[in-house]
């Protein structure tokens, strides 16, 4: 009797678990089936779109863009998948390795060369040339995207660009009668002047944690005005000017900037500015939404990074985010329709206004919100200045990002903690770049 009860209980448990699991699987199988069946052109098509920077600010904006697209294209359904920014590259890597990619993905410029070498992306040249958006999208942004790929093809259409700049607390500057810094010398003087021990305020916060490599690279080149490589193909990373800058920049750590800077990622750095601890922060227009929430209007603004000795602005070429179509898609034409829509005046204007990024579609530049948004206008002033120098990092090196994450980020912390000299750090960084470039040149017989 007991044996029978136990056997019944065991089978019931097994069946319940089985039913639960089969229930979960049924929906997925149905979805896969639908995807395959939908390959016929006259039937509804579902496109999967991966957002590489999902978050409370961007996800609803993408959902609205997708809604507007679906209204105009009732046969195309776009399924949004938001991926947290910190894990997005790994997620794409795994998907490419397993050949299970989305139809469309939002990808950073630095990923394009690697993804194209891995033959994960569809070249978009012919689609782009035939489309009206080819006359509107910033040619320098698409030019960089072509230049950095091994075969010179266009794999990503930039829908937003960015620019490193300084957010400053204008109210504190006024109180202290300090002028906005225009040169790097003035920048360092301002850091000293804005230190207010009584109120626990600092003039600046250094990014020492995740993403420190981007900040220091852009600051260094903005200071020197050099190209990434010299005429002989040797990198300028460890040029004496950069050594001089890095030494001075990090010498302020823990004396005139907060001790916690050594672990500063984006969140910590912006929180320092938004909670009234620091007077200046090196970031980009993208953090506008955060400042807008935390600080009173008129108490902060965006100013360009200081100029070189020659008075020249410097910006990093390819500081953009793109839409790419993955090779595995069964619906390339429908996917292109989505890419085209996102880059239309309507969608770019809405998306960039909501996220505080800089549009790449020239038609958007005349929109009232662009004229009224101080941070966007500042960014345009830099990009539209004929003397602005664009330096181009070697995004095409497959190791480029790995060097930034694996050599530069830890190197910054080593310099900040006094375990490494600025020169040794820059020499190590330069060597990593040159080794990687030599390997690349050898592979592709440049």
């Amino acid at each position: 009797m007991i044996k029978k009860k136990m056997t019944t209980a065991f089978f019931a448990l097994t069946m319940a678990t089985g039913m639960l699991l089969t229930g979960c699987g049924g929906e997925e199988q149905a979805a896969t089936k639908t995807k395959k069946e939908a390959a016929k052109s006259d039937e509804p098509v579902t496109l999967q779109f991966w957002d590489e920077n999902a978050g409370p600010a961007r996800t609803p904006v993408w959902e609205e863009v997708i809604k507007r697209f679906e209204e105009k294209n009732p046969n195309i359904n776009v399924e949004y998948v938001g991926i947290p920014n910190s894990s997005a590259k790994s997620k794409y890597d795994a998907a490419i390795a397993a050949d299970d990619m989305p139809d469309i993905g939002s990808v950073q410029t630095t990923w394009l060369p690697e993804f194209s070498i891995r033959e994960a992306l569809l070249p978009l040249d012919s689609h782009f040339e035939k489309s009206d958006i080819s006359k509107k999208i910033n040619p320098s942004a698409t030019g960089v995207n072509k230049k950095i790929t091994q075969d010179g093809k266009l794999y990503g259409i930039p829908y937003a660009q960015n620019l490193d700049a300084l957010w400053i607390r204008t109210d504190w500057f006024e109180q202290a009668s300090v002028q906005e810094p225009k040169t790097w010398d003035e920048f360092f003087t301002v850091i000293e002047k804005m230190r207010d021990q009584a109120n626990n305020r600092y003039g600046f916060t250094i990014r020492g944690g995740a993403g420190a490599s981007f900040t220091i690279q852009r600051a260094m080149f903005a200071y020197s005005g050099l190209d990434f490589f010299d005429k002989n193909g040797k990198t300028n990373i460890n040029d004496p000017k950069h050594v001089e800058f890095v030494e001075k920049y990090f010498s302020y750590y823990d004396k005139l900037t907060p001790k916690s800077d050594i672990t500063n990622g984006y969140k910590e750095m912006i929180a320092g500015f938004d909670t009234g601890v620091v007077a200046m922060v090196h970031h980009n227009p993208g953090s506008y939404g955060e400042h807008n929430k935390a600080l009173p209007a008129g108490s902060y603004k965006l100013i360009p990074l200081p100029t070189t000795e020659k008075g020249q602005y410097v910006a990093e070429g390819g500081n953009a985010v793109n839409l790419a179509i993955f090779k595995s898609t069964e619906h390339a034409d429908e996917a292109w329709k989505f890419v085209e829509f996102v880059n239309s005046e309507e969608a770019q204007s809405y998306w960039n206004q909501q996220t505080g990024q800089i549009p790449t579609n020239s038609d958007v530049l005349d929109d009232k919100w662009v004229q009224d948004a101080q941070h966007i206008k500042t960014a345009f002033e830099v990009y539209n200045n004929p003397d602005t120098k664009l330096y181009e990092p070697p995004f095409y090196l497959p190791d480029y990002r790995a060097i930034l994450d694996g050599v530069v980020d830890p190197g910054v912390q080593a310099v900040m903690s006094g375990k490494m000299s600025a020169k040794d750090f820059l020499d190590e960084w330069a060597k990593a770049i040159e080794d990687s470039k030599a390997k690349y040149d050898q592979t592709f017989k440049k």
Partner: protein
Amino acid sequence: MFTANKKVDKLLTLYLPLTMLLSFTIFPIYWTLNTAFKPEGDIVKRPLQYMPINPTTENFVTAWTNVGFATFFKNSLIVGVSTVLVVLVCSTLSGYALSRYQFKGKRSFMIMLLCTQFIPRAMMIIPLFVIFKNLGLISNPLSLIITYTAIEIPFTTILMSGFISNVPKELEEAAVIDGCTKLQALRFVVFPLLLPGIVATGVFTFIYTWNEFLIALMLTNQQSKFTLPVGLSTMMGEFSINYGALAAGSVIALIPAVILFAYAQKHLVNGMGGAVKG
């Protein structure tokens, strides 16, 4: 004098360290709760508010309805409960075999089980992705259940074999002499004594599946199939963080774990302490 000294000693050696430890542990939870009940504008406002001045449940509503935590919660529950069930059945049976039977290569088998725990999870991502893609199980909770079960079984088997070894073999033999079959002896004699161990193993497994992020993110390509940790991470964009909803989501994610611990606390302490003594 002696009593006063004893009191001071107790204060310094017992109450003070315990209070410090408790404050250290409780503070993040208190701050999460404090943030969860604050309106968005008050969260980063200076001076800091140590208690919400304008308390609101808006963040919970946002997290549960707008952000989709109800779905993430359901997904996590399905994965967690299913994994615990499978792990408990498998690890109890295999733990029993390891504890009660002598067989050739038993020691090597135990070492192999332990070795599986040293494989970095990140190394398994791409092979797992390929396997589950070929099985058509990407974005299917079954892929997570299978993976978590495979990851957890070696450790929980060793854990269970330890608990089972603490149950005197003589009790089983006595039950068999009294007319029980082997299964009945297991069901009526061994399992009741193993309850603290089963609870400890179950809680341990559940907490792992409830908190696991990397594998869940990699094997799920549909928003509607995200588990809680993956859902929580989408609250943190590169340029924006919804602190209120994030805190509310964390509180929601904490609830099952707290309930589970409150219920299982007694068994857990007994279980971790080595189950029954012979």
